[in-house]
């Protein structure tokens, strides 16, 4: 996948989610599953990730692609 998911950590820094190729989930499913519950996220192209992610700044208003929802796609073992 040439896409990435970003969301804001509690301290305001940006967390970058790198999807695993061929994991069987769509980028949207991965976002909903792996972004912490309640945190808004944005799906972006990998080429748009800056080299210096430590000083990366994202406006909250840009995180518009969804909200993490507590792992709905994780298959729980029984």
């Amino acid at each position: 996948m040439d896409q990435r998911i970003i969301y804001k950590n509690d301290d305001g820094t940006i967390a970058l989610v790198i999807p695993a190729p061929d994991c069987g989930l769509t980028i949207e499913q991965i976002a909903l599953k792996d972004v912490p519950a309640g945190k808004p996220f944005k799906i972006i192209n990998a080429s748009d990730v800056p080299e210096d992610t430590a000083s990366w700044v994202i406006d909250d208003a840009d995180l518009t692609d969804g909200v993490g929802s507590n792992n709905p796609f994780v298959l729980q073992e029984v």
Partner: protein
Amino acid sequence: MSTIKANAYLDAAGGNTATINGATPVGTDTVQTLTNKSIDAGQLTGDVAAARITTALNATGSAPVYACRAWVNFNGVTGVIRASGNVSSVTRNATGDLTINFTTAMPDANYAIVATSADNGTTNIWNNQAATSSSAGYMTASSVRIATTVGGTQANTTIATVTVFR
């Protein structure tokens, strides 16, 4: 549906390889070969299945075999996952601060991990740096959080691997 039971089915010449509607009856002593057929894994039970699995894994001796439940090899610098199994994504929380997310959750958080990282910097010399897990609270059934370091300082590394056993 009726069931017919017999010790042997004879053909017209007296042999016991007769077929019924094209199928060889179950229960004959003749060795049969499965061609283009499969056996559901649930039908393999007991010592036979265990022996075949350990043989396939080249495991000798009587010690039990515990399988890897998730693994990943990724580049923490470029953010590229080279290969993985049962991993949906890797989250870079901060420099050298990574969360490995499982596609299918572990049965609980009491698994064991092996985590390694290496960085070739600009000298093309490998400096093996052991990845260290963060606090115990960062091991959950659905993910594990690790740190990668170079020279004792938390850093992104060009090769990081995590393996999970349970």
